[in-house]
């Protein structure tokens, strides 16, 4: 680690992993509620568990992105972070605000939370994934602005690299699009439309830039391939991600009351969204094959390659499955969507954050480049446990979705929603089993930070 200010990344990474554990615990609880409806009721109702599961995901990924930026930007810009103090301060503000919000979800009814936080002054609550009280949303904006200021000033005073620039564009986009969460038009069509400006344009737009930039950074560091080559790929990938991702928002506009041309625009552009992910896969494997050196940190390379493959499968292939409007007519809002959501988030964003944590943590813990052999083996075990169980979660949900679409929407005598839910119970049990394996994988992952600490690190082969 070249710059001491990179150390501010560490608490961000630790918080990210902590919240990740919370997210998965609630995922497992909710998975059980799918089959045992009153499991933990009334303490944790389903809607609350779902809110906590999705909100924690977003928050821990944001912690991960911020930590990644604080680690990567000084290294790329070849200068100390503009203000490590501001970064630490924002960490605590974000953590406390996040924790209070989750506690609010769990301890008081949602309506009471809205009342306590004076939602009526500027109503923003109640929309899926954006359930946070207005005051939390304002907090997120403040943290994001301070973060952008810190990162922006660091980039301005240091070396300008394509990787840093792409990251900065992604982060600015993230902040800008979040502002639409404050806009709640009365017209329900517009309301839904602008809601997607946050939800879609984050994960299928600007977050992809963050993903591309972090992936390129980890690959440069672990393979030693020429920066020029990697940057060229990065340009092409982000151009494609933006062209297909921005207009591809249209695949959410099929059934909300927007004009008919969105059927075409949404279908055509979003059908091409797998392309940048496919390029990313080719890019990652190419770079690793062309590597100029072996890097002692094997798990970091594994996560990087894993994210390229799983993002392509989860976001690309599983997205394409139901993105054409005539398919989506039958599949929207079914378990097919849930299948896609799980693998896409895991492949594209969870794995890239774990890749950068895997790369950076040994250095943040005072090692030269890598952890001990034992720790690496445990971490790679966790990679396979989590990744394979996520593949199974996705497959089981896809199975559930196909049966659901047929019984509920396509068969000659369509059945009501809850009747169909009973019929696909077996898939939900299997999914819950895979979910528990995922949780075990996560525990193994956490254990990898604690085992082999007193053993020497893996050395670079001469």
């Amino acid at each position, binding site marked *: 680690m070249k710059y001491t200010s990179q150390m501010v990344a560490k608490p961000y990474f630790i918080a990210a992993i902590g919240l990740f554990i919370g997210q998965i615990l609630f995922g497992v609880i909710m998975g059980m509620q799918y089959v045992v409806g009153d499991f933990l009721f009334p303490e944790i109702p389903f809607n609350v568990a779902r809110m906590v599961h999705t909100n924690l995901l977003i928050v821990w990924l944001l912690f991960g992105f911020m930590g990644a930026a604080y680690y990567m930007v000084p290294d790329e810009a070849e200068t100390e972070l503009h203000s490590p103090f501001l970064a630490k301060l924002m960490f605590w503000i974000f953590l406390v605000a996040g924790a209070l919000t989750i506690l609010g979800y769990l301890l008081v009814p949602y309506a009471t939370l809205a009342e306590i936080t004076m939602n009526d002054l500027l109503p923003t609550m109640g929309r899926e994934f954006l359930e946070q009280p207005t005051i939390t949303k304002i907090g997120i904006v403040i943290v994001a602005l301070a973060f952008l200021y810190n990162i922006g000033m660091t980039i301005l005073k240091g070396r300008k690299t394509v990787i840093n620039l792409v990251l900065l564009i992604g982060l600015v986009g993230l902040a800008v699009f979040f502002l639409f969460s404050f806009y709640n038009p009365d017209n329900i069509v517009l309301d839904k439309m602008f809601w997607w400006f946050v939800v879609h344009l984050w994960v299928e737009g600007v977050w992809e830039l963050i993903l591309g930039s972090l992936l390129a950074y980890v690959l440069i560091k672990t393979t030693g391939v020429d920066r020029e080559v990697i940057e*060229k*790929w990065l340009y092409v990938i982000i151009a494609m991600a933006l062209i297909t991702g921005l207009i591809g928002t249209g695949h959410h506009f099929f059934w909300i009351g927007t*004009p*008919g*041309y969105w059927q*075409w625009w949404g279908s*055509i552009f979003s059908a*091409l969204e797998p392309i940048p992910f496919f390029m990313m896969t080719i890019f990652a494997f190419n770079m690793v094959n062309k590597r100029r050196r072996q890097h002692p940190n094997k798990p970091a390379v594994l996560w990087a390659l894993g994210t390229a493959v799983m993002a392509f499968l989860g976001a690309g292939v599983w997205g394409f499955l139901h993105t054409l409007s005539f398919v989506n007519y039958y599949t929207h809002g079914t378990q097919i969507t849930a299948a896609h959501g799980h693998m896409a988030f895991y492949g594209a964003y969870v794995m890239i954050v774990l890749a950068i944590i895997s790369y950076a943590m040994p250095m943040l813990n005072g090692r030269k480049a890598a952890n001990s052999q034992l720790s690496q083996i445990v971490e790679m075990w966790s990679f396979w446990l989590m990744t394979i169980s996520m593949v199974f979660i996705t497959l089981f949900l896809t199975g559930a979705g196909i049966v659901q679409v047929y019984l509920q929407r396509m068969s000659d005598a369509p059945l009501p929603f809850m009747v169909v839910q009973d019929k696909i119970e077996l898939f939900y049990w299997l999914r819950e089993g895979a979910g528990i394996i995922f949780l075990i994988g996560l525990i193994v992952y956490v254990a990898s930070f604690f085992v082999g600490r007193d053993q020497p690190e893996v050395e670079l082969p001469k």
Partner: protein
Amino acid sequence: MLYATGFFFNIGNEKLTKVMKYPPGDLAIWIFIMAELLVFGLFFASYAVTRIDNIELFEFYQQSLDRRAALWNTLALISSSYFVVQAVLAINRARQQQAFIFMLLALLMGLVFMAIKTQEFAHHIDQGITLSTNTFYMFYLSMAFFHYLHVALGLIVLAVLANNIRKGCYSQHDYNGLESGASYWHMVDLVWIILFPLVYVM
């Protein structure tokens, strides 16, 4: 006269100094071009399939398009592509000044396209035509406007290339960037060459 012929057609005794590699330019730009062609290809295929079911509607509204303007535009883009080729050849023969002039001519013809197309769009807007007017206009406006944006981006690329030529960034032995930009511009041209007969004529 002979000089002028030589200037415009790059006739000369010199052999090309570098064996042109295939594909010209950077591999990355070709992946990008393929992806772009796929987008347009999907649009063209969707148009063709939809037209089969709505043949009367499509034929009726096709008559409302300005074919003469489109023909001029076709000539503008083809000649622009020609000038880009000549600019690349000129660099290959180390004629920087000539390459710069050709690139400016290419830019000029691209601007002619933009001007004519802007007129056409203005005319449609005056008539109150939107994407929701009917299926034909939905396709026509989507494809034409998406292509228009590509011409705009292509012109920025050509301007950068012209400026690079002026600054002497390319030599006889190294003009990979120039070929990459030129390839992109040919893609823009190619898309129009399909769009023109498909939407205006057939």
